[in-house]
């Protein structure tokens, strides 16, 4: 019987290697798998590449990994969000590499990997500093930039409900990056508020199908 639920947060993040690329879902503080990020801190992997929209807040979750010097590089669109002192300190100390990517390009590059494609041409950032060094092509009279697929070794996700196969639903804007990151990592790990019986999620309304999910851990209802 398929059962993707693991008992502990430690089990959920077991096996993450040094140097791993970690997809960190969430937008601002919403839809972020804070408990999995804390567990990853405990787990101890170093030299991580983080893909996220923002770059941590305060000293918990992603910011804690940054403060502990576990992160080699951040691929994000907007580090300056909330109390981003953890990022700022590492950035100023030049102990951290920043790859700044337009927000939609982050998710599209991950979807590109998820869809088994080799890259795409996008008009976003064409002719700007963020396209420096990138291949360009004029298509239908418009300049485009070639963007490569982006994949994660692990995705740290947060959803509302899961069943034992790993079908997922979300709450409101906490959906954000979670579905696309679930598709784009070799190992997709999700913290949920609740496990439900197989068959109790509406087959028309599951947002992330089970095929994209590897491990599920229950962290209890939202605070």
């Amino acid at each position, binding site marked *: 019987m398929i059962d993707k639920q693991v008992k502990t947060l430690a089990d959920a993040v077991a096996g993450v290697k040094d140097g791993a690329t970690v997809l960190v879902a969430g937008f601002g503080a919403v839809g972020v798998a804070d408990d999995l990020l804390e567990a990853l801190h405990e787990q101890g992997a170093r030299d991580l590449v983080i893909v996220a929209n923002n770059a941590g807040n305060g000293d918990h979750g992603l910011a804690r990994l940054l403060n502990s010097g576990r992160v080699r590089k951040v691929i994000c669109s907007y580090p300056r969000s*909330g109390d981003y002192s953890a990022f700022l300190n590492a950035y100023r100390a030049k102990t951290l590499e920043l790859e700044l990517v337009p927000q939609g390009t982050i998710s599209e590059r991950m979807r590109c990997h998820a869809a088994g494609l080799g890259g795409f041409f996008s008009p976003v950032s064409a002719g700007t500093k963020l396209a420096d060094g990138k291949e360009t092509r004029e298509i239908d009279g418009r300049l485009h930039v070639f963007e490569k697929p982006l994949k994660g070794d692990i995705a740290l996700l947060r959803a509302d409900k899961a069943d034992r196969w790993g079908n997922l639903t979300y709450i409101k804007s906490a*959906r954000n990056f979670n579905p696309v990151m679930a598709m784009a990592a070799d190992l997709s790990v999700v913290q949920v508020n609740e496990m439900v019986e197989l068959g109790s999620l509406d087959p028309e309304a599951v947002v992330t199908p089970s095929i994209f999910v590897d491990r599920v851990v229950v962290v209890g209802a939202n605070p």
Partner: protein
Amino acid sequence: MKPLTREQMAWRAAQDLPEGAFVNLGIGIPTLAASYVPADREVIFHSENGILGLGAKPEPGMEDENLIDAGKNYTTLITGGVFVHHADAFLMIRGGHLDVSLLGAFEVSEAGDLANWTTEDPAFPPGVGGAMDLAVGAKEIRVIMDHTDKKGNPRILRHCSLPLTAAGCVKRIYTNLAVIDVTPHGLFVVEMVDGMTLEKLQAITEPELQLANSWQALAPPAAIAA
């Protein structure tokens, strides 16, 4: 001559949002526009984090921790609104599905080039967010910004001095002094505040301005917060 307040600029931009339009409001002054859509019009606001049908700020105590807007403030969903994932939210942006993208800016050039993502302050890391996506995708890109910087220097320039967000994208500029259309034939002033003249406006605008034949007064109703 009385420049418009932020609220009045937002009010002015809101008047141009047509019935049934899908609109993305950038962070800052554009966000304020949502409150000034005429009551008889249905305009549907899009938020880059995955909301189509963004509503007003929640009443105090009614905040939902799972419901924020692109500015990371608590928000609400209007009746008929839906949630989508991030790649779909940006498909809407980049794919030309939005009717209007209303953005803040540091500078706009006479060719409609937009600079609104970085001031290149070396002390801080750059952040681009959705600025570049929003600047290329919507059917029409409009900007709200003060006509000059704090020192009185023009922000409508021959060429942007700051790094571009996107080239040739801006079609209309709402400032605290005027409404200006960016056209292949140059910049046309379509509205000016009471007491403003083309000459005075030109003095604080780098590229040449032309006065539209049909120009009129830029006059928010008294009720809009001054």
